[in-house]
């Protein structure tokens, strides 16, 4: 009985839990509550993943109104895979959040932080499970409004302006998506994604559909910070509270990529997306330029979080590049990198949060000599950094491997070279952190710095070890990504 309701529980539990946090109003208790809810969500996600891989897609009719009339939740392997990533990363990050938030937020703000956090989680999970395009827009806005609030809670006043520009860009993106949805509804009279994918096939010559497609894709690209629509992201990730940056960096952009995948291959159909329009050229060009420009920008940043933020833009560009290949292996590389990048950025941002907890600054020059003072935290940063570069035995290597295989398969060796060169640039910006932390001697105040407390080190190392584990044992990632690729390409045919 319960197992039939998992799809809706996945979204409703955090949604109801969010306002309940307001009633509790006690920092520690709300944290425990949010952690429990997030853990519950990840259990549900795992159950769904298991259900989907054994019995096929889960379809849930909301309020028992059947599909074209009512809203439908539809979870396939891809959805369940994303649900698992988002919920488990969220749980691990929450595990560390109590003490980090205590040092970064005032006592009254902490319960409110968890309200916004759970709402943001609700929005993301909703985006993944829903099978209705208008419902998708609503969930996009729920997660977006919650993330503006999360970002604005940062201590630095620049957090406010960062949140404000994110709000403008995010609303613009969401409204573009709304226009796209409206035009699609105008053409077909349905909002159900499955229905749309069937009815849009006959309309592939319609100019209205081209307009809808362009509005929708540009809207999503604004959300996922695809170069050159990325300018809002660095400040938003840099000045937000550490927990929020870890959560958003590891999950938010992945969910946007999921929307892109779902629409390019599912709703609009692979044939329309790639043959009626030069989408392949656009995505690949933007991907390549994005990798090179964002990685180079990352080298020149003085703030450690800003380096990682630019690196995130570069990593998104990698995913878009391989998505643009429009091949089985390209898609596989994108999906594997979604998971792996969530692990890397989760580990790195959380480790930086531990550094922030001790020294209260993210300026690289303040890191001098900390490698000796905080050996465990910085060991985690080193492993996360190497993973970002793509050294063997880390998840980064697996991603890069699949990307290069996918590009060589098409004979695009210059693209493969760009991917390798991107890794070299990553090595440069990661090295700047290593060099300051290990090779420079500590200034006077830094000598007093102690290792981060165990309650921070445990979540950091959970993610770091996951970086190594999934870098050696690729069976889980590969199997699920393979199944998801098949389901995406299958739905397109």
């Amino acid at each position, binding site marked *: 009985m319960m197992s039939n309701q998992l799809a809706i529980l996945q979204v409703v539990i955090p949604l109801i839990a969010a306002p309940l946090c307001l009633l509790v109003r006690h920092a520690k208790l709300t944290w425990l509550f949010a952690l429990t809810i997030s853990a519950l969500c990840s259990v549900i996600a795992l159950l769904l993943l298991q259900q989907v891989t054994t019995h096929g897609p889960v379809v849930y009719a909301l309020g028992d109104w059947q599909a074209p009339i009512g809203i439908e939740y539809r979870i396939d392997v891809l959805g369940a895979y994303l649900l698992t990533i988002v919920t488990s990363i969220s749980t691990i990050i929450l595990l560390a959040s109590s003490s980090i938030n205590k040092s970064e937020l005032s006592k009254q703000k902490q319960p409110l932080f968890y309200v916004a956090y759970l709402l943001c989680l609700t929005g993301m999970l909703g985006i993944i499970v829903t099978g209705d395009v208008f419902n998708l827009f609503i969930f996009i806005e729920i997660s977006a409004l919650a993330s503006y609030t999360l970002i604005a809670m940062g201590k630095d006043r620049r957090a406010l302006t960062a949140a404000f520009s994110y709000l403008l860009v995010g*609303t613009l993106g969401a*409204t573009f998506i709304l*226009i796209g949805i409206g035009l699609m509804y105008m053409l077909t009279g349905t909002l159900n994604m499955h229905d749309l994918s069937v009815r849009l096939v006959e309309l592939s010559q319609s100019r209205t559909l081209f307009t809808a497609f362009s509005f929708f894709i540009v809207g999503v690209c604004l959300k996922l910070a695809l170069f050159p629509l990325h300018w809002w992201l660095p400040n938003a990730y840099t000045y937000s509270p550490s927990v929020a940056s870890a959560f958003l960096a590891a999950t938010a952009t992945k969910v946007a990529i999921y929307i892109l995948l779902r629409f390019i291959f599912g709703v609009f159909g692979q044939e329309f997306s790639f043959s009626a329009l030069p989408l392949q050229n656009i995505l690949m060009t933007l991907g390549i330029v994005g990798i090179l420009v964002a990685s180079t920008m990352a080298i020149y940043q003085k703030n450690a979080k800003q380096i990682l933020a630019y690196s995130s833009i570069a990593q998104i560009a990698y995913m878009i590049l391989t998505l643009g290949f429009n091949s089985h292996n390209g898609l596989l590389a994108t999906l594997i990198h979604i998971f792996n990048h969530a692990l890397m950025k989760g580990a790195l941002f959380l480790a930086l949060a531990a550094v922030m907890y001790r020294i209260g600054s993210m300026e690289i020059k303040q890191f001098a000599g900390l490698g000796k003072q905080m050996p465990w935290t910085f060991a985690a940063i080193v492993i996360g950094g190497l993973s970002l570069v793509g050294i063997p035995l880390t998840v980064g290597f697996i991603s890069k491997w699949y990307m290069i295989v996918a590009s060589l398969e098409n004979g695009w060796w210059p693209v493969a070279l760009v991917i390798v060169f991107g890794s070299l640039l990553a090595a440069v910006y990661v090295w700047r952190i290593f060099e300051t932390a290990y090779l420079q001697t500590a200034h006077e105040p830094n000598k007093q710095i102690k290792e981060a407390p165990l309650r921070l080190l445990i979540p950091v190392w959970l993610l770091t070890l996951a970086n190594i584990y999934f870098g050696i044992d690729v069976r889980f990632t590969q199997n699920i990504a393979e199944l998801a690729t098949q389901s995406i390409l299958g739905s397109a045919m």
Partner: protein
Amino acid sequence: MNVAESFNYWAVMILMMSGLYILIAQGNLVKKVIGLTIFQTSVFILYISMANITGASAPVISEASSQTNLLFSNPLPHVMILTAIVVGISTTALALSLIIRIKRAYDTIEEDEIHDMDAQ
């Protein structure tokens, strides 16, 4: 295409572009929010316009309407836009409250002045 026939869509386009222009060109944060609201509102009109059917009345069921075979305009876009208006209002509310906080922190709401203060 006749302009009078598609008057609504022309209005939508003009509003949409003016909103977008205000959003980009104005340096004052409140004006930016106004531009954003105009932009969003144009999309609401787009939805409402497409729901209209020539000669149809408002989709309200009453005794009289169930007896005569009246045409109704499509109610679904209206419902969607009600939801979108709520989303729009929350966005505006959040944006304005951020502006209040920005004003307190920087003592200005002009974008270029804020930019200069951050650059220091």
